[in-house]
């Protein structure tokens, strides 16, 4: 009789039992007690590992929540829904987080911004354009239109419109700030969702030059700053809004010759 088969089965089976026993023993002896809450909280999080909360990933964020080092509503991606789930697990009040959205503070698209007489050859990435004479537009502060933010967005919430300026799709946006980091010109900023008044320009050129560079540039005339009682401050030929002191009714929107200071949502413009 040929025992080869039996010997093989017996050997492998025996080894299997031996190792299984070893593992069972290790599980008893070397067990690390983990707070079961961590696993629960981790399950409630979106699992995108995007890092928008400032932690290394969802699991790290969960550990921080359970240890009390992070707020239950600290995940901008999950929004109120996730915050509620996490709060239920932790047994605390969720509180409502104010949703932050990225705002593109430049409206100088292809039809507004003046192009250089020359043509740019090279990679169509904003970062690459910014280090060599700044792409095709004459403005050295505004949106380059290369779409680094669109590429950086992990949620497809940024699209380039026909005019060459990125737009945010609020339904898809999770406030992860990847677009803000991708922009070499710092044109994109995070703002609370209810904010509606912005200076849509970053240009610091003097008035005469700014006019030659873009038709919607802030010319630095300062009329908004003079009328707004501290709501707008002039920084190097550019109006910068101080939201703590801003009173919308004081701002002479119709006096701004280029419309650089204006509303984000057009529909509400009539209300004010």
């Amino acid at each position: 009789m040929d025992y080869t088969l039996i010997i093989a089965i017996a050997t492998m089976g025996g080894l299997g039992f031996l190792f299984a026993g070893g593992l069972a023993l290790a599980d008893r002896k070397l067990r690390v007690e983990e707070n079961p809450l961590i696993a629960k909280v981790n399950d409630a999080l979106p699992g995108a590992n995007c890092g928008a909360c400032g932690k290394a990933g969802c699991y790290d964020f969960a550990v921080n929540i359970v240890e009390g080092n992070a707020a239950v509503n600290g995940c901008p991606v999950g929004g109120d829904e996730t915050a509620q789930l996490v709060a239920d697990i932790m047994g605390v009040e969720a509180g409502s987080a104010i949703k932050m959205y990225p705002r593109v503070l430049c409206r100088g698209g292809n039809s507004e911004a003046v192009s250089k007489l020359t043509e740019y050859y090279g990679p169509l990435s904003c970062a690459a354009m910014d280090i060599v004479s700044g792409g095709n537009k004459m403005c050295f502060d505004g949106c380059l239109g290369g779409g680094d933010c669109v590429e950086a967005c992990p949620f497809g919430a940024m699209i380039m419109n026909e005019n060459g300026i990125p737009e945010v799709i609020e339904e898809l946006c999770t406030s992860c700030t990847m677009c803000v980091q991708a922009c070499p010109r710092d044109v994109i900023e995070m703002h609370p969702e209810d904010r509606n008044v912005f200076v849509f320009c970053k240009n610091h050129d003097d008035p005469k030059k700014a006019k030659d560079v873009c038709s919607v540039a802030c010319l630095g005339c300062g009329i908004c700053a003079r009328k707004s009682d501290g709501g707008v401050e002039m920084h190097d030929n550019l109006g910068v809004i101080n939201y703590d002191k801003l009173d919308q009714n004081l701002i002479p929107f119709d006096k701004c010759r280029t419309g650089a200071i204006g509303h984000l949502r057009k529909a509400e413009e009539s209300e004010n």
Partner: protein
Amino acid sequence: MKLFKKAKTFHGGVHPNEYKELTENSAFEIMPNPAQIIVPISQHIGKPAKPLVKKGEEVKAGAVIAEPDGFVSVPIHTSISGKVVKISKESNVSGAPKHAIIIKANEENEVELMPSLNPDTLTPEEIRARVKEAGIVGQGGAAFPTYIKLTPPEDKKIDYVILNGCECEPYLTRDDRFMLERSNDIIAGLKLAMKALGVEKGAVGIEDNKPEAIDVMSVAVQDEPDIEVVKVKTKYPQGAEKMLIKAVLNREVPPGKLPLDVGVVIQNIGTAVAIADAVIKGEPELTAALTVSGLGINNPKNLIVRVGTPLADILEYCGGVKDNAHKVVVGGPMMGVAQFDFAAPVMKATSGILVLTEEEIKAHEETPCLNCGMCVGVCPLKLTPTKLARYAQLDKIDEAEKLGISVCIECGTCAYTCPANIPLVQWIRLGKERVNQLKNDKKSA
């Protein structure tokens, strides 16, 4: 007999069409003063100078209009007499706009000079002080303040000063003309630099495509036993510091180290002339010597222009651009910067203005990398440009740093060679920028 030795060189490199015949036989011409100059307050590597003048003020040619701010900074002089029109951000040949002082010329032509000094009795400190006072920056392109180069750290032992007469960039013939026309001043400048550094030995490296310059310079050093003229092979980038040191002295500068670390200081031919002028004539750096060339300009010339002269004035002086001109580059064709605004002014270290036609620039479509490795073979620093560019593109900065992206001198040899026309240098530059950014972030964090 030296001249019959085989020309020395380094590993890698390329040999592009030279086009030097356009201007190599035309002597320097002095361009008349422009009606207005635009003087950037940052014409050097380091901190921009601080303006000393106000709008409406009258200034006399040669007067200091901006003082150095910090250690790595030099004073800026006005190159013409006139009135300050304004101080604002203006187009700059480097690409991004920079703060500049605009001066409108008046009738006066006299230049305010510093007292002339006797080179034989000067102490090293006096030489350095004068070089700083004259606002001299390196003419090789990077515009590093020269007085700092002449002030090496005490723990570094310098034993050689090499003058860089390679002029390996195609088209440019400025250094060639300097060597033919002002060989004695060049040697005087070299001896001043050697004295300032307390160095015995000097050398002048010249590419073998300039036999006349080699002859003239050899005659000029006949009575100088400690200075030799070294013939090096015509190859790009022979004029890069590390490559020149390898060719002349066979010393290898380790990655991330400076020529100082192997006991060498390199100065450009133009810088030597500027040092001699500043000490012997007392003239601050008011002029830029440059080659205006390319198939797209009507009258190619070697010119001496006032610092701050707008490009437009110079192109017009050279007969204007031809109809088939396609691109204007400031500097050499390999490392120069393409221009978009001809109002931008010439700076102290500007070495050339090239008007190129479509035939010369041959823009091709970019295609995917073939992994052929040609860029690796030609890189004078033995890097792997294709990988560096890819990592920079993907923002894998750690990987790029491991492969030595910071060592790259951006000479453009790889991009010139690439059969797929990938803009390697632009990506690598972006990568280098990111490396610095991350370093600064770490420092501040």
